[in-house]
């Protein structure tokens, strides 16, 4: 079985971030780049399916982004992916969801796969729209929010997490699946995995390697980013002086009631 997992490289979710007012882009210097946490679940799904299928099954990691950051993908290889491919080109800068998904789809169609597993969301831009757009560009069925995936004899059964329970969805391959966070905790890389990862390849391709019929980057985008602002700084919290414990508890309760938490 051939599995491709998409992984975006994002700024460390725990780091403090700043937006450059002139470029309207995130200041990346001094902020570490990590694997998009949601994509780690997709990778875990891919690795589990590979282990279950055995034989010559492979997991390839695909990422679109800056080639300068591609070594960050080494961690995905250390976790057990077999190789990685990065689509990187300055022409892709400024791509919106539609343009990103188009370029990614063109690159992914150069790979052979039975399963394309995608994280449900990215930590930095949080649209959650790329998986659907990718499936559309690739002409693949799309099953979202999977908490369990079974593949046997080319048949597919997926448990989809929903608000009220879960659905069982059957389908055929090839398919695009997005993973829910209930899929299972992503594994730690093992020492052997880390040491083996340096021998695995991280390939790079650019726009000239793709047969594009449409423009990409800013000109290929259907939306335009007008402004970009950090969340307003949090104001000073309200301080309540209370005479004793009962008065303190009462004012906390009143506050919670006012906010409709109780």
């Amino acid at each position, binding site marked *: 079985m051939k599995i491709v997992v998409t992984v975006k490289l994002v700024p460390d979710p725990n780091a403090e971030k700043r937006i450059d007012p002139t470029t309207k882009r995130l200041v990346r210097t001094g902020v570490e780049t990590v694997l998009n946490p949601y994509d780690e679940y997709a990778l875990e799904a891919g690795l589990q399916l590979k282990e279950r299928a055995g034989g010559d099954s492979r997991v390839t990691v695909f990422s679109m982004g800056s080639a300068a950051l591609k070594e960050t993908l080494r961690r995905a290889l250390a976790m057990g992916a077999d190789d990685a491919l990065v689509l990187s080109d300055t022409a892709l800068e400024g791509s919106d969801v539609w343009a990103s998904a188009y370029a990614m789809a063109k690159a992914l169609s150069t790979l052979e796969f039975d399963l394309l597993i995608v994280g449900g969301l990215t930590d930095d831009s949080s649209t959650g729209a790329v998986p659907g757009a990718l499936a559309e560009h690739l002409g693949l069925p799309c099953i979202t929010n999977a908490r369990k995936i079974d593949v046997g004899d080319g048949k597919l059964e997926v448990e989809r997490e929903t608000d009220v329970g879960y659905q069982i969805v059957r389908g055929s391959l090839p398919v695009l699946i997005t993973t829910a966070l209930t899929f299972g905790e992503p594994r730690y890389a093992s*020492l052997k995995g880390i040491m083996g*990862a340096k021998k695995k390849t991280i390939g790079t391709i650019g726009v000239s390697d793709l047969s594009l019929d449409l423009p990409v980057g800013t000109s290929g985008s259907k939306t335009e980013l007008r402004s970009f602002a950090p969340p307003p700084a949090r104001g000073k919290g309200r301080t309540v002086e209370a005479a004793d414990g009962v008065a303190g508890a009462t004012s906390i309760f009143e506050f919670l009631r006012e906010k409709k938490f109780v």
Partner: protein
Amino acid sequence: MLKAKAAAPDATDFLDVASLLSDEERLVRDTVNAYVRERVLPNVAGWFEAGTLPRDLGHELGRLGLLGMHLHGFGCAGASAVAYGLACMELEAGDSGVRSFASVQGSLAMYAIHRWGDEGQKVAWLPAMATGELIGCFGLTEPYFGSNPGGMRTRARRAGAGWILDGTKMWITNGSIADVAIVWAATDEGIRGFIVPRETRGFAASDIHRKLSLRASITSELVLTDCRLPAEALLPLADGLSAPLACLNEARYGIVWGAMGAARTCYETALEYSKTRVQFDRAIGGYQLTQEKLVNMLLELDKGTLLALHLGRAKDAGRLHPAQVSFGKLNNVREALAIAREARTVLGANGVTLEYPIIRHMNNLESVLTYEGTSEMHALVVGKEITGLSAFT
């Protein structure tokens, strides 16, 4: 000439020691760091209080490949000394007991078999010890012989093709949970090492209770009474006291790093606390006395980390002398303990509770100061090296 603006130093890695690490070394560090943050830190104060270490920890460390990670073959990863050191540092940033577990398994028990055992012994034990399926311990210290193990009373007599062991080993980490003990005993031919499976008749282990240090670690007494072993139990290549001492040298090297992990946690805890704790209407981190404490801690933390890395590079290059490991262990454990004590004062009364990690580390480091050669013995080893005069033999 244009001068590039230097980046502001990190509050912990002030000297940017991380820039001296390779990508792979950083990945090892970050992986163990994440494991400790997610699996050890939420639970370790409870383990310490209860005086236990969960058995499953061995499996988890095995899955990560950290047990015997610096050994080659037999299911071991064959990592560099620096990578091994970084793993020790991250484990001990969690707790010295967790690092001790990995040290005893990898650097004492597995290393003894790897270095002094024959092929059959290696195949029989090492792969299962690397995964954490089997746990090992290392019995050298005795009730009457600690710093001077050469005087040991545990005896091994030849009986036909095999051996009979009698004696008592004391302060043995992992003793009662071990599936296999490496036991050092005096014979007519000098000190030899034996692989003693737990189920051997005449072998018994009982725990030492009421420790106030290294509580998230099992410490036991081993009693060997007329313990009969086949000829294959003998480690064929271990001949004399230098054999167990070589094992200790491996584990000590890990402590040079590990101690700085414990120190880092204490420093970072004190630093964070000092920025939010207000006394006399100001954060205590703004007072000169507190800043001097924090800066002194940082100086020793970063110097000690550089020292560990320097020794690690020398070890990987095959030119690390045992007395240099003594230098590192003496300095880094001593400074880690001083950092822990200083950090404790910054937290005031909060510093004495298990709600914060400092007093746990501080108490743990008392054991680390004593085991694997006391600080005094390491001073004497270095003293002998520089004067040519031995103060202890």
